[in-house]
């Protein structure tokens, strides 16, 4: 939110300056996120603990290093991945409502997890007894997302038109959601609750190994984006113009499917679906930086996405309680009003 004020006060500020401001915002959000929780640990304590190794209490070291740090890192990774996927989709499909999940990725991951959690009870087979290994969930999500993405890619190979691809992706998403509904209908209450909680998303609960895996996948997923920055700029005028400027939209489409598949797919597999960030953050970045140049927009969306998800997670930490609100609900509850107010204040459709 502070970006808006920055934007108003520095009308002619350079994009680099704004990027630095966003970086500071990210650091601030990180510290805030890490210090809030069931016990509040002041940022000063955290910093001195990290740099000198002197913690005021041994339990605090545990909380910070093994619980809050991984969670904050996951928030940063997820924020970066989701918002960059969203920006790619919005530019490629030239549609302001496109997001990372339009190609059915989250429904696919959902299907994988639903089969893992629900199918057992739905078909009356032996259940996992309520405690499912987090790796199993991540693998099921990855498999499901890959399956749907593969099917959509086959369609993409067949259809030449990007609008058709968008519709095919949405239809696949709906069909897969329908299968999940059927599974939910026939499954037991315990399994259903487990799945419902997964579908609300969660940034916590990952061990360091998983954080490293997620970090690695996200890094790989960003490589195609960096390689095609110029092509995304060329796509701004539409596919025909892009072709006339020597850009190959078919190649870009494959790179985009690969990149969003890795980014959004891995995030959904590890954290569950996280709504809103992927659609809204690219718009926020476009409004603040007032540009359509992807060389600026990609780092900008990454910074804003990471900060916003950290802040949302901080909001979700109910003060004085070990309970946290599900991240998927918080992103929409906190984020939607911000975007609505921005959209109403500015001439939104003209800026897209």
């Amino acid at each position, binding site marked *: 939110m502070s970006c808006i004020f920055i934007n108003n006060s520095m009308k002619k500020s350079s994009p680099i300056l704004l990027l630095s401001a966003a970086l500071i915002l990210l650091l601030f959000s990180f510290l805030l996120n890490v210090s809030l929780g069931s016990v509040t640990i002041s940022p000063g304590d955290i910093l001195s603990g990290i740099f000198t190794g002197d913690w005021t209490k041994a339990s605090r070291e545990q909380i910070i290093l093994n619980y809050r740090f991984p969670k904050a890192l996951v928030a940063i990774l997820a924020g970066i991945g989701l918002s960059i996927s969203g920006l790619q989709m919005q530019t490629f499909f*030239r549609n302001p409502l496109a997001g990372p999940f339009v190609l059915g990725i989250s429904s696919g991951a959902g299907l994988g997890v639903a089969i893992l959690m629900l199918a057992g009870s739905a078909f009356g087979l032996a259940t996992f007894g309520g405690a499912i290994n987090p790796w199993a969930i991540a693998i099921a999500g990855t498999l499901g997302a890959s399956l749907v993405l593969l099917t959509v890619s086959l369609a993409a190979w067949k259809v030449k038109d990007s609008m058709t691809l968008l519709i095919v992706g949405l239809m696949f998403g709906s069909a897969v959601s329908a299968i999940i509904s059927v599974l939910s209908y026939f499954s037991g209450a315990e399994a259903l609750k487990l799945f419902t909680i997964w579908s609300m998303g969660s940034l916590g609960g990952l061990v360091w190994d998983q954080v490293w895996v997620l970090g690695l996948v996200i890094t790989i997923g960003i490589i195609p984006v960096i*390689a095609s*920055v*110029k092509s995304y*700029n*060329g796509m*701004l*005028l*539409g596919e*025909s*113009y892009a*072709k*006339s*400027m*020597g*850009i*190959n939209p078919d190649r870009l489409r494959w790179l985009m499917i690969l990149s969003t598949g890795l980014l959004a797919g891995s995030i959904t597999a590890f954290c569950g679906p996280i709504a809103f960030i992927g659609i809204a953050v690219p718009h926020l970045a*476009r409004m603040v930086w*007032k*540009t*359509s*140049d992807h*060389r600026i927009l990609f780092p900008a969306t990454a910074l804003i996405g990471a900060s916003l998800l950290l802040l949302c997670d901080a909001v979700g930490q109910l003060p004085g309680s070990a309970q946290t609100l599900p991240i998927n609900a918080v992103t929409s509850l906190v984020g939607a009003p911000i975007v609505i107010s921005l959209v109403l204040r500015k*001439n939104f*459709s*003209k*800026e*897209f």
Partner: protein
Amino acid sequence: MGKASIIGTNLTIGYTKGKVQKEILTGLDFELLEGEMCCLLGPNGVGKSTLVKAILGQLKPFKGEVLLRGKSINTYSNEMLAKELSVVLTEPFLPGNMTVGQLVAMGRIPHTSWTGKLEDTDREVIQNALSATKIEYLRDERLSEISDGQRQKALIARALAQDGKVMVLDEPTAHLDLVNRYEIMHLLREISKSQGKSILVVTHDLEIALETADRFWLLNCGMPLISGLPEDLVITGQINQLLPGENFRFSVEKGRIESKIGSLKFDVSGPGEYTAWVSKALEKAGIKELPEPIEVSKDPFLVNYAGKEFLSLEEFILAL
């Protein structure tokens, strides 16, 4: 004249639907010379866009080939083609928060490295493109805040910054007002002359095209493409190919299209430039013939008919 930058020989093009090849244009021969502005004219649905697609290399011809600077256009890679040929399309989609300068800079995409960073030479070309289209003053304006005519000029500047030998424009003057249409077409003519570019303009503005084009390509259903100097086509009457029905024809003396039924005879005498307008007004009022001769005088304008004088044509027609 200069060398031909685009040559089409015995070109047959169309679309493949399933296993059926639907031919839209057959046996086309044409040449586009360097430093020449050429207008492609023809009724809607005759296949102008299809021909343009073939010239842009987006459509593989069934027979014959399009040569760009001596090489078949289908052998060019996307990147190489982009350095030779640039376009202005009818697609209305433009991101509103892009500035004119940024739009024009996009023309350098085929020339820059993978990051798209602009070098000094790129900046120079962009500057030249802006000054050739006379929109330097718009450089920092956003696309959502300029007029349609200015936007069209910015798109032309973008195509110019792409720095190819050939520019193809699909109806660049559609939706523009009269002054802007003249400005854009004269601008294109200037560019073709000063920068030695081949410019192909698809247009429906016959009168402005007559003013500005070096060459016409006329397309009509079931006919071969007619190519020639606009003036030749007017004199030989081939320009009437554009008007297939019985109702209209191109008037050689007036330089515009008129209704054939309008060949009514009124006996109008007076200054030459006025008599035509008097006949026109009478024709529109549905008057077929007048028994007496009409006399028109200049300074002040007076219509003299059957011994009465009228100050305006409106008065005159009301009195009839």
